[in-house]
């Protein structure tokens, strides 16, 4: 524990912005884990006697068009955001990393073919590819996770491949081969652990984007479905319709999204500067 604390302290003093990001991320995680105890109300409980209540002592952030408590929905919404953000980023980056290392290890025709496929995937803008996947698989939490992961695969593969290409020439890979290790063993036990730095950098860089993408998809009505509390969903429909009457409905969820994306972005940037300043992200 001691070296970990020392490392955290030096990271915080050298990169204050990154430390702020880390604190916000930790607070969000706490909010998500303790949503049940922290929330003053049930996020799904409609109360038609308390529609459009402005922020006050009983409802800190007001209520929405169904009389649901906005603060409770925000707290539960951080669960949705973090769950989808983390699982899609981990899924996308991991698949990308395996493809990247695989390409670098085998090279030749397999590499060329997979690279072409990645090029094709890269010529879709992020959200367009995600929307196509949603079109194929439909909406819902798991499909959204997959839809956000797919556009990240080629980006992660590209970066990991270039790091792994250098590893391929390393002596320990050579010696593992001579010792008769299988290809799978070399890829998973020898090469993948050595691309951990770019992997982690890509992962944190994607987290912010994943949360933003989830919010956009939900906002378009193609992501998480009602009544699940999700930030993007809270901005859809009634929030715009009744914007004049109940501006808090539109303000707070957007602030939550911005804060989360900001935190992950600055954390990712500082992590990149600390681990590998020369790495370029696509």
């Amino acid at each position: 524990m001691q070296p970990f604390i020392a490392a955290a302290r030096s990271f915080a003093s050298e990169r204050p912005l990154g430390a702020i990001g880390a604190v916000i991320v930790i607070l969000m995680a706490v909010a998500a884990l303790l949503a049940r105890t922290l929330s003053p109300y049930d996020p799904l409980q409609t109360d038609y006697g308390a529609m459009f209540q402005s922020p006050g002592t009983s409802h800190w952030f007001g209520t929405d068009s169904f009389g649901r408590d906005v603060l409770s929905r925000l707290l539960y919404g951080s669960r949705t955001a973090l769950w989808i953000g983390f699982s899609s980023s981990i899924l996308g980056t991991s698949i990308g990393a395996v493809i990247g290392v695989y390409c670098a290890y085998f090279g030749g025709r397999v590499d060329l073919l997979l690279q072409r496929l990645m090029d094709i995937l890269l010529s879709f803008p992020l959200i367009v590819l995600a929307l196509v996947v949603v079109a194929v698989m439909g909406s819902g939490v798991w499909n959204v996770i997959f839809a956000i992961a797919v556009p990240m695969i080629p980006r992660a593969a590209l970066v990991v491949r270039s790091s792994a290409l250098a590893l391929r020439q390393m002596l320990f890979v050579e010696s593992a081969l001579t010792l008769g290790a299988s290809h799978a063993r070399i890829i998973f036990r020898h090469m993948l652990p050595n691309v951990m730095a770019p992997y982690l950098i890509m992962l944190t860089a994607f987290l912010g984007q994943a949360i933003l993408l989830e919010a956009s998809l939900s906002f378009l009505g193609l992501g998480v479905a009602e009544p699940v509390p999700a930030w993007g969903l809270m901005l859809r429909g009634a929030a715009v319709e009744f914007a004049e009457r109940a501006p808090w409905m539109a303000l707070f969820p957007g602030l939550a999204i911005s804060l989360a994306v900001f935190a992950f972005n600055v954390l990712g940037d500082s992590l990149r500067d600390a681990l590998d300043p020369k790495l370029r992200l696509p």
Partner: protein
Amino acid sequence: MIPTLLGVAALVFFLLRIAPGDIVELKYAGSGTFAPKEALDRERAQLGLDKPLAQQFVVWIAGIVRFDFGNSMWTGRPIIEEIKVRLELSLQLAVMATLVAIILAIPLGTLAAVKQDTWVDYFVRIFSIGGLAMPSFWLGIVIILGFLIFFKWMPPLTFTSFWSDPRANLAQLIWPALAVGYRYSAMATRMTRSAVLEVLREDYVRTARAKGLWESTVIVRHALRNALLPIVTVIGLEFAFLIGGLVVTEQVFNLNGIGMLFVQSITNRDYTMTQALVLLVSFAFIFMNFLIDLLYAWLDPRIRYQ
């Protein structure tokens, strides 16, 4: 460029067809009446959905070569017509958002670099980090909200062409352009700052200063001119953000553009429309990168393409 586009076309075409449930079922499910299987099959035959996949694909590609994207499966009208009526709006919005981004990014980034580590620099950096974090659709909502609360005014909802009434047109489109452009500018601002910082340390900048040039001439003619290459690269790379921004922002401002059409086509399972739009967007994206390559050669005469 063409092999990539062909790959994009094939990928989208086959992906959309492995999806369970097709448009014909969806149409009848929406009407609420029970439909006999024969009626469904007849409709499928009419849309060409009963043919083998490979044949459908070849027919589709052969059409595209002749600029015939087929008919929308939802409205039945030719896709090229549907796109044509919406293209002007989206194209104008895209150009305006890019202009907003450039007008924000280059002066702010240069200013931050020149005033490195002062409050101006910090302000610009916070401004650009904010742009990256704020979803453009939310920014759009906030803009509308601000107008409603403080001015009791709302951007007009019906689209007027720039050529018939430029003022009404701009009054409507400048706000979504700002919302998208701000986000688009964030990355470019950061790149401008770091590129200018790098160039400012070069010997030729010192020489320019030593021979007594105005500071503004040094910055604009010597520093910025040489820093443009990475800035242009970022603006090209971030073009994808622009497209993404348009897709969601058109929804907020209720603009009937390409982005709106794209979301509708996905909700309606309008295969032919989705295919055509994805191809169009990817083409725009690839073409933009091609233009950037050309721009390189113009900005940096040392770059020559064989």
